[in-house]
């Protein structure tokens, strides 16, 4: 065997080892959630650390802080109201998760805008209404570009403005438990309603008393 052939073999071995290692790490950290056609479309990542705190403004113009939600699980995502991609679908999926868990589940749905230029309080309120969102259970948040940038960054959301009312962003769905621990993140827009509901059921505290 030539010196070069030996080198090639060692390189191939190292590559195969690295692939195996990465594959193993992937299994330990999370898993792909296949879509209906079997192609991976969302990556579920286990997190397990305190969720980054933020204070923003909700669709009623009230301050909203994550720490103020202790005692409820929080399902948190990022989108913008004039989105022509999958944001409206993600919004309907969040509503479907809440329906599955029932009206007394101690759960708060939170949507944070990725387009503060357009998505002010009024616009977010109208958006919530179009989806039949109850403001006591579902918050749509905006804030200063600087405050929002900090939150986007903390939750791994990358935002690129394209035109007025048009931004590019990745889809992130974060699950925060009632103690403020960030338990998991779904990366991508293809997360499954049943799977997310199941994950939430594992971390939800006792149901809230029936609302009158």
């Amino acid at each position, binding site marked *: 065997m030539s010196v070069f052939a030996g080198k090639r073999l060692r390189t191939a071995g190292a590559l195969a080892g690295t692939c195996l290692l990465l594959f193993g790490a992937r299994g330990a950290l999370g898993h792909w959630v296949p879509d209906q056609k079997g192609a991976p479309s969302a990556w579920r990542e286990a997190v397990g650390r305190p969720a980054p705190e933020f204070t923003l403004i909700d669709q009623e113009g009230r301050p909203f802080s994550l720490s103020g939600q202790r005692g409820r699980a929080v399902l948190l995502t990022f989108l913008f109201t*004039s989105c*022509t991609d*999958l944001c409206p679908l993600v919004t309907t999926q969040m509503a479907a998760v809440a329906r599955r868990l029932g009206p007394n589940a101690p759960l708060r749905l939170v949507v944070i805008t990725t387009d503060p230029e357009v*998505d002010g309080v009024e*616009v977010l309120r109208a958006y919530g209404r*179009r989806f039949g969102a109850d403001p006591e259970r579902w918050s749509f948040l905006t804030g200063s570009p600087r405050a929002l940038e900090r939150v986007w960054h903390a939750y791994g959301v990358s935002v690129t403005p394209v035109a*007025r*009312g*048009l931004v590019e962003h990745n889809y992130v769905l974060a699950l925060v438990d009632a103690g403020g621990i960030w338990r998991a993140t779904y990366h991508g827009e293809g997360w499954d309603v049943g799977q997310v509901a199941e994950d939430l059921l594992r971390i939800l505290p006792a149901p809230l008393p029936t609302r009158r």
Partner: protein
Amino acid sequence: MWVGGMRGRVPSGGLPRGKVGAAAAVCLWLLLGGCGSEAERGASLYAQRCLTCHGSEGAGDGSRAAFLPGKVPDLRKSSLSEEELRRVVSEGRKNGLMPAFGPALKEDEVRDVVAYIQRFRTP
């Protein structure tokens, strides 16, 4: 450009008739449509904001349509008036799947995109 490229090749007796006609046609095209007419701006906005759901001919068969829970309306068969179309584009639909573009677009942009949508209609 072709018009510029003609310079230097103009015969001393002036342009041949055919070339004069072609130059006039280009000028007319530039004047009427080439500089960004209402329809052209509407087409560009449609491609940017509507195409993924409504499709290139407005048939409701855009690349994202199959992923939505409801059926995307066929704009070719829409019975909405121009004013109603403007309202839907500006305010969205109640189910939330059709976004409200009013906060993002200017009034004249809404008008342009509606003018373009109306071209899909079959008589």
